[in-house]
């Protein structure tokens, strides 16, 4: 256990060899992970707890920590050597808990680097528990730490202090064991300064985001052109033979789909083995890979908390605070981790707003790829129009929700870590883990979705439902009747739905309306599942109602503006 952003997860992964995500910003671990290690033929179970400043929890992640603490036989308190005073408050609280305790003095190298010296033996004496200096990212001190797991660590002498006494005590301890030598202003400090002051920081932030967007689109396209498309070109003859072998019928309909001009078309055939494979792996994955690489670099460098500070003014207006940028940022990759990340926000109100807004107005890479795919032919202006509408929706729905939902909106309260150079292996590892999670989350739902839709289509249910909803689609949104099937498909897979709109020959205006409505009105199956997990049934239903209403309301307004009555 320990304060946020002190490297608990790194220590954990060093001990267990487990792969966990670590970042240079607080709140990466929102749930606990469990691992085991073998020591002298004994199996030790180790749990990585979310960061907490004290044992009186203020958010769900901290509550998780407290629950874990109550079940532990031995606690490793990871503390940040560069920030001894602040970290000791939790240590003192843990000392009063009657549980054997070891202190890992992490970021030992960084402390030495910034001119902080700590007298470890003296600290051990005052605290009455073992203290081990560690550098978790390199593994220094970890073996030493682990050796304590099989020894009998004595239960510390229980000392109960009231709040005042604790602070006096901490002051004394820090003065006794820590010497700080003054350090000079470095280049890092200067970069840190200019990236956080509004006058220079905001242009830099915009530049960073633009470069990120450009890089993702450009490099993603490169990946598609030179890697995934050639691969699928090799796959085409195989699947064509299979198609001939199966012959027409319902099985063919489900696995291969429709033939376009007598041939398989990966974008339009809609079979599980054709479009079902091509969309996630051929079209979406390249963008997701590039996005996650850049996201990992930004995270590990420590830029995100600065971005949170710069955007706080904005997020405060929509009922959140600067932390709100983290779920939005992750949501741009895939909404599922984005919605999970809303746990960094303190109150239920804030989490509800954040999750709902992500599901409505933050297009994931799949949606972004499809927005570009569907509208690119009409010109970049239409893409920008969709993005502008999404931004307006994000702000207005946010402002409305923050007014009508009861509950508190705590303010930003965030430590900004020093810049650290991202480690290449760490970035790759993190990207790899996120990709695996993305494939595990998205692909099964996709197959299930395509399978389900194909059955509905084959049985004629979709046509029937489409006919019922047609007045709404035709009358209110100004789209042709055939588009209703596409919009229905969007309940399960929006990216596929946009693919279905392409052959309908819509005008640019109609396409913009259809794409915007589809992007907003319902999350994909994966996001739907996390919404239920995070908000509960009633929260999810409310959230979905808000989405559907907003989507059709905005779609209708756009119709009247773009097409007229």
């Amino acid at each position: 256990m320990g304060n946020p952003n002190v490297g608990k997860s790194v220590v954990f992964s060093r001990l267990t060899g487990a792969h966990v995500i670590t970042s240079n910003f607080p709140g990466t671990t929102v749930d606990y992970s469990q691992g085991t290690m073998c020591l002298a033929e004994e199996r030790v179970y180790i749990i990585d707890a979310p960061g907490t400043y004290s044992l009186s929890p203020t958010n769900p992640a901290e509550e998780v920590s407290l629950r874990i603490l109550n079940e532990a036989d031995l606690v490793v308190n990871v503390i940040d050597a560069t920030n001894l005073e602040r970290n000791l408050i939790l240590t003192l609280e843990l000392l009063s808990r009657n549980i054997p305790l070891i202190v890992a003095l992490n970021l030992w190298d960084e402390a030495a680097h910034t001119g902080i010296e700590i007298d470890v033996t003296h600290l051990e004496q005052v605290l009455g528990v073992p203290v081990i200096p560690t550098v978790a990212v390199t593994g220094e001190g970890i073996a030493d730490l682990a050796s304590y797991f099989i020894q009998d660590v004595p239960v510390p002498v229980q000392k109960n202090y009231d709040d005042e006494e604790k602070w006096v005590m901490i002051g004394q301890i820090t003065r006794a064991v820590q010497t700080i030598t003054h350090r000079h202003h470095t280049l890092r400090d200067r970069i840190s300064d200019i990236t956080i002051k509004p006058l220079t920081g905001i242009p830099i932030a915009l530049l960073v985001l633009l470069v990120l967007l450009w890089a993702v689109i450009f490099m993603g396209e490169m990946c598609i052109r030179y890697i995934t498309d050639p691969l699928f070109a090799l796959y085409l003859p195989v699947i064509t033979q299979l198609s001939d072998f199966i012959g027409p019928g319902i099985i063919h309909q489900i696995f291969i789909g429709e033939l376009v001009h007598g041939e398989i078309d990966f974008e339009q055939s809609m079979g599980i083995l054709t479009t079902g494979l091509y969309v996630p792996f051929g079209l979406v994955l390249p963008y997701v890979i590039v996005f996650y690489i850049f996201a990992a670099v930004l995270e590990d460098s420590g830029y995100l908390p600065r971005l949170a500070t710069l955007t706080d003014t904005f997020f405060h207006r929509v009922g959140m605070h600067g932390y709100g940028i983290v779920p939005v940022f992750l949501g741009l990759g895939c909404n599922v981790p984005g919605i999970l990340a809303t746990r960094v926000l303190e109150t239920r109100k804030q989490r509800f707003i954040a999750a709902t807004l992500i599901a409505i107005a933050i297009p994931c890479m799949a949606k972004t790829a499809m927005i570009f795919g569907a509208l690119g032919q009409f010109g970049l202006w239409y893409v920008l129009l969709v993005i502008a509408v999404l931004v307006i929706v994000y702000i207005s729905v946010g402002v409305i929700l923050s007014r009508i939902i009861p509950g508190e909106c705590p303010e930003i309260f965030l430590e900004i870590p020093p810049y650290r150079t991202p480690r290449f292996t760490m970035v790759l590892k993190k990207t790899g883990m996120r990709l695996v999670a993305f494939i595990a989350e998205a692909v099964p739902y996709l197959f299930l979705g395509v399978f389900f839709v194909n059955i509905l289509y084959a049985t004629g249910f979709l046509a029937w439902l489409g006919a019922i909803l047609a007045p709404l689609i035709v009358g209110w949104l100004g789209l042709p009747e055939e588009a209703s099937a596409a919009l229905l498909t969007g309940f399960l897979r929006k990216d596929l739905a946009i693919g279905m709109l392409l052959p309908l020959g819509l005008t640019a205006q109609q396409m913009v309306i259809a794409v915007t409505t589809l992007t907003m009105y319902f999350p994909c199956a994966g996001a739907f599942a996390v919404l239920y997990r995070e908000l509960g049934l009633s929260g999810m239903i409310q959230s979905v109602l808000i989405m559907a209403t907003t989507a059709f309301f905005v779609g209708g307004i756009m119709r009247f503006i773009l097409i007229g009555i």
Partner: protein
Amino acid sequence: MVVSVMDLEEGKTAKIVEILGGCGVQNQLRSIGILEGKDIAVVTHHPFKGPVVVMVDGKMISLGRGLACRIMVDLTW
């Protein structure tokens, strides 16, 4: 003269003399290292009611206005 951190100019340092508010707020601020007797420097004020970035013990911290105006500092020091 005692004022809140909100009124402290950018780049200026002062000593924290008091933290206003209940136990919850006090402990919240203290747990991150903002406590009486510490020197606090303002790195920047964000416009339009944005947050205040301060420096305490070489650590940079972003604070909302509501929190910042509870931190009272002595300017004459």
